């Protein structure tokens, strides 16, 4: 490889995300992820702590914000029209009640869903009119389109980590020197609107940039772009989950074959964070194959390196793959007087 994972058309795939040192980068409206809050709540917890305490961001969310509903959209119980008006309501609440102009979401599907709606409104004035009218009729609220740096859009939480990566790296207590890592980008972050992705959908930079800032060595493997297999209806019902397990098996086999010494997979999608980890347990039980590759969210990794507690703050006590070997390798201390069980069962 001539240029290790460096996107050669980098200039085509940038979007401007203000850092906390820039105007507009200190106050953000945010949307929670319903997948994270139910299947990996600790991830949002640590992300929140870092954004607030370490980056000093004024994070604003309203009690009346609802889910974007996109799981129902891709799970086929709602319609495009519904999604548009729900998005418009959440935007309107953020702007008129909380006074924020730029927004991010913790979930990649929300990010894609909001981006889709904003783009539809931009492209088709009729849809925009319909949305504004229905919003007014059903809720009495006014229509508003969020902007980031003057461009009608929303961003994803990992974008903010990426934008502030050098600030975070400067604050980090530990470094990833000598650690081999690979990214796994959420499909709904990269593949629906490749133009809205830091680095484009083939060689995204959003997580690679973060990993590099922390000093990790980036590797690549043939199935890197393969979906984790979360697949909405496919992961939701156990009877369909062979789809998920097979996809994870395919990905991890490819990674093991190419880079058996890869230390971690970094993700920015709630689904991938959960299933790339969890299905390793299934594969172990069903096939007896052990991969043992720690999978973590960008916020969990940043939290670890900033010195937050791996279990209490970063939530590594609810994961399937043990994290201790990686902690030892990086040099992060943890209570060794306790057994792994005890570390994971605080009560």
């Amino acid at each position: 490889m001539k240029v290790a994972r460096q996107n050669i058309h980098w200039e085509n795939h940038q979007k401007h995300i203000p850092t906390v040192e820039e105007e507009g980068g200190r106050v953000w409206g945010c949307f929670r992820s319903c997948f994270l809050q139910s299947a990996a709540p600790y991830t949002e917890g640590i992300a929140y702590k870092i954004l607030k305490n370490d980056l000093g961001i004024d994070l604003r969310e309203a009690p009346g914000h609802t889910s974007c509903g996109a799981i129902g959209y891709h799970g086929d119980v709602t319609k495009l029209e519904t999604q548009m008006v729900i998005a418009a309501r959440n935007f309107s609440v953020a702007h008129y009640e909380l006074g924020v102009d730029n927004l991010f979401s913790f979930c990649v599907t929300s990010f894609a869903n909001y981006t889709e709606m904003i783009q539809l409104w931009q492209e088709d004035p009729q849809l925009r009119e319909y949305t504004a009218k229905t919003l007014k009729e059903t809720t009495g609220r006014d229509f508003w389109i969020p902007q980031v740096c003057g461009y009608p859009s929303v961003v994803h939480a990992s974008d903010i980590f990426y934008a502030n990566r050098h600030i975070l790296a400067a604050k980090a207590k530990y470094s990833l020197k000598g650690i081999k890592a690979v990214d796994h980008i959420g499909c709904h972050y990269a593949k629906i609107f490749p133009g809205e992705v830091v680095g484009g959908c083939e060689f995204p930079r959003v997580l690679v940039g973060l990993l590099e800032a922390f000093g990790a060595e980036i590797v690549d493997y043939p199935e890197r772009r393969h979906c984790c297999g979360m697949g909405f209806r496919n992961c939701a019902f156990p009877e369909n989950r062979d789809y998920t397990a097979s996809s994870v098996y395919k990905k991890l086999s490819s990674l093991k074959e190419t880079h058996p010494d890869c230390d971690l997979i970094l993700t920015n999608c709630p689904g991938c964070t959960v299933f790339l980890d969890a299905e390793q347990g299934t594969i172990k039980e069903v096939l007896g194959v052990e991969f043992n590759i720690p999978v973590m969210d960008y916020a969990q990794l940043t939290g670890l390196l900033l010195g937050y507690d791996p279990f209490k703050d970063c939530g590594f006590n609810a994961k399937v793959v043990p994290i201790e070997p990686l902690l030892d390798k990086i040099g992060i201390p943890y209570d060794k007087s306790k057994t792994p069980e005890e570390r994971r069962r605080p009560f």
Partner: protein
Amino acid sequence: MVTTKGKRKFVFGLKQDRLADGDKMNSQLVKQVVAEGGKGAAIAACMQCGTCSGGCTNVDSMDLTPRSLVLMVQRGDWEKVIKSNTLWLCSSCYICTTRCPRGVRPSDVMEAVKAIAIRQGIENDATRFHKVFVEVVQKRGILFEPELIHKYAGLEGVLKQAPLGIQLALRGKISPFPETVKNPLKFSQAIEKAKSCPQPQQPQPQSQPDTPTIPVVASTPAQKNSTSQLVSSSRN
């Protein structure tokens, strides 16, 4: 699949990967088929247009269309070829062969593949029927239908076919008694002689009388290098 290994119960397992492995492609089977069937079974020219499948009489019942069968031979996927019912459903009507725009002869390919399969010892209803058929004919020099049915499908088969057999017999289409050939001795001698003959070597490459005799000339008389000769040699 339900797995209860360990403590937890999984109602799912891992699906078989449907991703085809292109690295298994090879030209061994093509070479074997050509060796068996001669030039008539050469399929390199196939461009997968589907004319053969489009016209095939029995394609509705086949699990691989003739086009796919040829493709699998090209790819060297012997397993797919040998498992398919296509080989045994081909009625050798030659529609595929008369219509192929590239002069490929799928019916010859079928014959060659079947010959390889039989030599490898494949056994199924079709091969058994053919074997029984040949045995019956060898024994009498002529077919005796009730005997064929009996040998192929047993007494049950004979009973099952009896109503039809009776009808046929009443109309004089078949005889309830075995017929004989004029000179049974001569016939069996001929069979013995044929059996003792050494197996023919490779089938002789067929000459193609329908090939145009006007030589195709390379479009420019420029330098005749090796490749340009090869190009023009494809038809002359």
